């Protein structure tokens, strides 16, 4: 069946901010869908609140709405779009935006919006979505088609839950309906646990219901990626086997493609089941993901769940096979059938087939518990990882070891600290460190049988690990010089990195890896590059989608074209997320247009950068010195010039820049030396002095003594942190010596034997982020972003507004001036980000009116987290321009007026607010207070022609409801009290009641406000927490009291999170909230298409 002609306009729903369980993979799928549908000539409209995505680029869609993904705003978008084309065939594609998009589609349908504006759904119909997502409907459906499922019951109260659990016996699985990544799910081994988990689950489930289910813990877990077209052709794209058995969320499991331990009979039965499922659920077209559990001793197979949409696993499957699931799904949704779509990679054959692999793919999740002290680190049915890496090898062993080194943990394999005492616990209870402990156990001589018994990991996998261990032991027998070449080759074929070999041979220090590299080259042990081609070489492949391996034949002969290699950012993590992938992709697009062969290196399967058609060549490889250098050498071997870009991928590539340069690689753009200078406290301090730019007094120390010494000299409070880490990892604000003592003790672990920095902590200062473009001579400022929260709250964790709202012009000028100076001094070629802090004069001694000082907090001569945000706001693709500057083009070509007039990029009449999104719901028990250590996983953007509305939209988009009536609970530091009064008045004027703790209440009453007093938690009852639980409070303003927040506030904030009450922890955010609420009270729901905003600005010129 050819393309549908009854549709001309398609609204694609994005997945919103990056959160645990819903990450960059939906930017990948959404972007593919946009491209595919646009190229089919449809008018593509996109709604997504996440500005860091590539799909929200103005080019991706015809009209892009960066608006909150709520029913209200979606209805408005639909209304506007319908008005633009009253008679157009108008459809919504809800299957590429994750759970968020599906839930939205249901709301729009149930709310009658689709009907009202005569909009249809394509991809999946409501009935199918409900059947798949409602766990009970789903199970009934499965039983109808004769498939086995774990016994279960749906409950909406604790009593029924406990009763049913009694029937089927513990342990039981608790799974809330309609939540992402299993949020709120859990395992209960006894009644008490059940009460706790169930209570949380019921609360988190939008439908306020949970499934209590028979446990199949320890069974083998599988996933199949299925596609179906309108002619009912169904194909399986990929089978995935989980290394970690049932009980660990697939998103938290090491997974392997293709499945390794199923016979054909068993596999085909699973395949038949998958096909039956997609037909029964009625997903008309597109991709679905179906999960199975298999009893390892009897083969009993149960269906776990189906996702009637593209998912994290389908992104993985796409990268693992080379079959672009989302793109094809989009085409199927508009009527094409699989046999009508060609396979891009082979060109000659159709997409209607089942990919076959002649390599093994391993995905390993990345967790960041170090950022959430107090969080439960054990892994279960609820996903906790923040990102993942994928590795390709010719064997499982090779892929696994490549994956492990791709994780970029900063820790060397073998150097992890092991606590033998907890070995059993680590093996029995799934945990991020389990793999390390399995390795240790093997080394200790535990048998595979024993380990299998404790972990339920399939013995075949364990045997592979044992072979790796045996090789390790073999290698330890010889010093490098006398190791037999055969053993060396064998080890490399298994995936041993040069680094690990160096460690094994005690060749420590920087030179070690290099020695190994030279030694192995001398013996002709070099990697070759093979293609991912969907067909195991049966047909010729036309897309250089490559991976390294130690084999005979190379399939990636470099071309004679001039090349640019772009280093990606590796696994998503807090502080280094999708924004960097955005920049890498843009660099690739731009330089491709400029006639360069662009070469992407990355190992993150969720991203657009690892899509095989983003760059001319894709190397799906770990971002380590060994792997990157090997590729650079390989690409240079044809003689064509090769430039390498390290500026766009965040800290990971930056850490490689000096070693790469030392190895003779040509790094283009800002020099590694400048980058290093900016990171090197001493030298950078000197530079600032020379430029006479103020910086918070600080010192660099290596020992506890030095630290204490320095802190005393600088004066408390001080900010302590390791040098060279992104996302403010392991930072603390120390108000006293003890804190410093403690800190220094564990500091060593993260700081990667680099020194520790101690800075004067600038209290009550406005923080500002500045992004700029520079070609070494000319500099243009992209945006000056004023943070809502003050300095001390990580730039990635605070909301910010562009343009700045209340920073006096002279200060803006000074920041521009500093930025220009810095850019020139550092000879920045490309992007630069500067963070400033401006203490707010008040509270200072003296007669008050002395000029505020503008301090530089840090300079990052590289792409920053805010580049996509600024680009969306200004309509200027900063990353593209930056890439072009790096190949020698001049800023004047692109932004002549700005250079002439010395103006920043124009933001037009609108305000753009960026707000962070936090994973608190995944980590019960963790304090939600913000600090200098970044903890947000994603961001959203709010746009409006006034600051208040923009802020309100950003809050709503971030899932923070701003109430328009009710009671505000206020409890602020003495230091904030005076200023709080004015804000409190605004709340009262808007009709809010006030509740406050004594200190705060006193001040408010003095100013003539009526206040209800409550106790602090430890004072007595009723206290703040009681009121929150009793739904008496709609908004909380609670600024931390000095050094260590009282238990009190933690309790309050926690209660608020569970009760989903917005909590504001800074004064400036309180002001913004007041403005936002005022905007909501004005009641208008207005939306803006990005393209319209940009056009309007061009017209104005």
């Amino acid at each position, binding site marked *: 069946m050819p393309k549908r002609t009854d549709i001309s306009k398609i609204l694609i729903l994005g997945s919103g901010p990056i959160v645990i369980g819903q990450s960059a993979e939906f930017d990948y799928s959404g972007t593919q869908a946009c491209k595919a549908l646009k190229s089919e000539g449809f008018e593509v409209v996109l709604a997504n609140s996440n500005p860091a995505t590539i799909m929200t680029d103005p080019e991706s869609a015809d009209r892009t709405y960066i608006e909150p993904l709520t029913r209200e705003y979606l209805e408005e978008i639909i209304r506007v779009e319908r008005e633009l084309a009253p008679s157009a065939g108008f459809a919504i594609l809800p299957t590429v935006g994750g759970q968020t998009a599906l839930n939205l589609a249901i709301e729009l349908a149930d709310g009658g919006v689709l009907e009202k504006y005569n909009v249809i759904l394509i991809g999946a119909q409501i009935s199918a979505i409900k059947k798949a997502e409602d766990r009970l409907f789903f199970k009934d459906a499965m039983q109808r088609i004769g498939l086995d499922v774990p016994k279960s019951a749906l409950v909406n109260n604790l009593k029924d839950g406990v009763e049913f659990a009694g029937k089927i016996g513990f342990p039981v699985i608790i799974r809330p309906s309609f939540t992402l990544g299993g949020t709120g799910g859990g395992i209960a081994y006894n009644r008490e646990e059940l009460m706790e988990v169930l209570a949380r689950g019921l609360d988190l489930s939008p439908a306020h219901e949970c499934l209590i289910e028979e446990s199949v813990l320890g069974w083998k877990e599988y996933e199949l990626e299925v596609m179906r077209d309108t002619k009912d052709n169904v194909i399986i794209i990929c089978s995935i086997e989980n290394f970690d058995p049932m009980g660990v969320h697939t998103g938290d499991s090491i997974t392997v493609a293709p499945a390794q331990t199923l*016979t054909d*009979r068993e596999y085909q039965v699973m395949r038949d089941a998958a096909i039956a499922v997609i037909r029964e659920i009625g997903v008309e077209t597109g991709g679905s993901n179906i999960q199975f559990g298999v009893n390892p*001793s009897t083969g009993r197979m149960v269906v776990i769940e189906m996702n009637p949409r593209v998912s994290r696993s389908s992104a993985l499957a796409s990268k693992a096979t080379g079959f672009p699931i989302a793109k094809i799904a989009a085409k199927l949704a508009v009527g094409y059938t699989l046999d009508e779509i060609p396979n891009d990679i082979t060109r000659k054959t159709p997409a209607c087939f089942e990919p076959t692999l*002649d390599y093994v793919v391993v995905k390993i999740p990345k967790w960041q518990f170090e950022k959430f002290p107090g969080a439960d680190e054990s892994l279960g049915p609820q996903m906790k990882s923040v990102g993942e890496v994928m590795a390709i090898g010719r064997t499982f062993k090779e892929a696994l070891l490549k994956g492990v080194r791709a994780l970029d943990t900063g820790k060397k394999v073998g150097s992890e600290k092991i606590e033998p005492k907890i070995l059993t616990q680590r093996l029995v209870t799934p945990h991020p460190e389990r793999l390390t402990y399995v390795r240790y156990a093997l080394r200790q001589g535990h048998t595979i049988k024993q380990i299998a018994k404790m972990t339920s990991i399939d013995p075949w996998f364990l045997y592979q690990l044992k072979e790796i261990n045996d090789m390790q032991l073999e290698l330890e027998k010889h010093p490098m010089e006398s190791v037999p070449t055969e053993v060396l080759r064998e080890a490399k074929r298994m995936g041993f990195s040069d680094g690990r070999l160096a460690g094994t041979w005690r060749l420590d220090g920087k030179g070690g890896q290099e020695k190994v590299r030279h030694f192995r080259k001398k013996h002709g042990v070099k990697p070759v590059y093979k293609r991912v081609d969907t067909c195991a070489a049966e047909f010729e492949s036309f897309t250089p989608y490559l991976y390294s391996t130690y084999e005979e034949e190379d399939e990636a002969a470099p071309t004679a074209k001039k090349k640019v290699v772009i280093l990606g950012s590796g696994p998503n993590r807090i502080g280094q997320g999708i924004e960097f992938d955005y920049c890498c992709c843009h660099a690739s697009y731009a330089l491709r247009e400029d006639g360069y062969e662009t070469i992407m290196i990355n190992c993150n399967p969720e991203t657009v950068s690892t899509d095989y058609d983003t760059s001319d060549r894709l190397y799906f490889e770990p971002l380590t010195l060994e792997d990157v250098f090997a590729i650079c050498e390989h690409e240079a071997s044809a003689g064509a010039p090769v430039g390498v870009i390290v500026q766009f991928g965040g800290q990971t590539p930056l850490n490689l820049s000096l070693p790469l340069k030392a190895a003779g690689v040509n790094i283009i753009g800002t020099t590694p030396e400048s980058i290093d200078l900016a990171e090197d406290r001493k030298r950078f301090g000197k530079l600032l002095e020379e430029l006479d730019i103020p910086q918070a007094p600080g010192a660099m120390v290596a020992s506890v003594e030095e630290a204490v010494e320095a802190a005393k000299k600088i004066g408390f409070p001080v900010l302590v942190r390791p040098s060279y880490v992104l996302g403010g990892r392991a930072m603390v604000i120390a108000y006293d010596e003890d804190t410093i003592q403690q800190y220094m003790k564990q500091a060593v672990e993260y700081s990667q034997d680099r020194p520790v920095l101690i800075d004067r902590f600038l209290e009550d200062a406005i923080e500002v982020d500045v992004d700029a473009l520079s070609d070494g001579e000319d500099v243009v400022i992209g945006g000056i972003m004023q943070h809502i929260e003050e300095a001390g709250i990580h730039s990635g964790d605070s909301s910010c507004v562009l343009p700045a709202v209340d920073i006096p012009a002279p200060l803006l000028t000074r920041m521009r001036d500093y930025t220009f100076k810095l850019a020139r001094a550092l000879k920045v070629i490309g992007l630069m980000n500067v963070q400033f802090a401006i203490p707010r004069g008040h509270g200072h001694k003296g007669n008050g009116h002395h000029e505020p000082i503008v301090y530089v907090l840090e300079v990052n001569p590289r792409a920053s987290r805010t580049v996509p945000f600024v680009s969306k706001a200004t309509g200027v693709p900063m990353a593209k321009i930056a890439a072009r500057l790096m190949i020698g083009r001049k800023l004047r070509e692109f932004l002549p007026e700005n250079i002439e007039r010395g103006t920043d990029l124009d933001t037009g009449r609108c305000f753009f607010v960026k707000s962070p999104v936090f994973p608190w719901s995944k980590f019960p028990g963790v304090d939600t207070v913000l600090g200098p250590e970044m903890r947000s996983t994603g961001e959203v953007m709010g746009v409006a022609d006034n600051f208040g509305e923009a802020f309100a939209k950003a809050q709503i988009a971030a899932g923070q409801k701003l109430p328009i009536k009710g009671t505000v609970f206020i409890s602020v530091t003495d230091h904030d009290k005076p200023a709080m009064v004015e804000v409190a008045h605004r709340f009262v004027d808007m009709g809010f009641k006030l509740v406050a703790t004594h200190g705060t209440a006193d001040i408010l009453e003095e100013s003539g406000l009526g206040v209800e007093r409550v106790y602090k938690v430890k004072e007595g009852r009723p206290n703040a927490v009681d009121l929150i639980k009793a739904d008496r409070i709609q908004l909380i303003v609670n600024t931390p009291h000095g050094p260590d927040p009282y238990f009190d506030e933690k309790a309050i904030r926690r209660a608020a999170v569970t009760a989903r009450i917005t909590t504001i922890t800074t004064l400036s955010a309180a002001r913004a909230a007041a403005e936002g609420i005022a905007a909501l009270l004005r009641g208008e729901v207005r939306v803006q298409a990005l393209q319209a905003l940009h056009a309007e600005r061009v017209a104005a010129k």
Partner: protein
Amino acid sequence: MQAILALEDGRVFRGKGYGAKGECSGEVVFNTSITGYQEIFTDPSYAGQMVVLTNPEIGNYGTNPEDSESQRPYIEGLIVREFSKVSSNWRSQQVTDEFMEQFRIPVLADIDTRALVRHLRDNGVMRGVISTLEDDTDKLVAKARAIPKMDGQDLAKVVSTNHTYVWETGERSHLPDEVVGVRDDPARFHVVAYDFGIKQNILRKLRGEGCKVTVVPAQTTAEDVLALKPDGVFLSNGPGDPEPCTYAVDNIRRLMGRQPIFGICLGHQIAGIALGGKTFKLKFGHHGGNHPVKQLSSGKIEITAHNHNFAVDPDSLPQSEVELTHMDLNDNTLEGMRHRNLPLFTVQYHPEAAPGPHDSHYLFKDFVKMMEECKR
């Protein structure tokens, strides 16, 4: 143990040897199935061939009695990237390495199988020798050149059964606590199956559809077949070149119209010749479980299991008598046909799967329907 593969064109691969010590030779073909190595080893259609499996991890789930397609492995030799030394699966009864050794099949592992596959893809299938004994590669290349070409070889009569026998049991689920298919309903039809190298899953399937199956040697005459009073005749898959199987062609000519006929693979090719068509050799054949085949009448696609080096040339068939029913979407090879007025249809691919997808099981039902109609 080291092992060497030498190809007739002089290309040599050195790797590790597993399974049996010694030497083996044959035509080297590659199979792209991800699962089902045991079924592949034991498929008689592979007589005279050495198989490269593109899936690099082989042997993981061991071997078991239920998953064999015949009494023993028929491949001459096996070539893989990684050969598992252990097996992990609740049905596994023998480690694959031991299985291969027991049946004297040499295994060459640890070579760049992808390079070999690309070589075969670009240069076509060719003869080769695997040796764990000989180290002189020139000698081995010479040996490879010396072995007979597949073209013109009648291997069907070599692998066929030498006596007539009746097949009793239908398909069994591998799942323990599953009740379906433990008993077969009484046979309603009698099918005589020509064994040109038949796969047992075909027999299980036929039995499962309610047919009593009498398996007869490849050279059984049409008269002897009719004497068994069948309701239908089945032409099996098998190894080698269809052209020299003239005896089979004659018998089929004599059975056409007098018996409902269903043929698979070699059976399809022989029927093609019997209908006046020609067969030809494909460059590197179809061997795998992911081939899209279009059913021309409905336009529906089946994902199918293939294992053939030869194919029937559609243009050589009399359009007036023969209707083309199935096409391979990858390269437009003819994959199925039926006679316009006689009860006969055949497919080039493997509806019985084993290994492979089950999308085409319906063909066995079609065969039964055809017999039903003819009975009336």
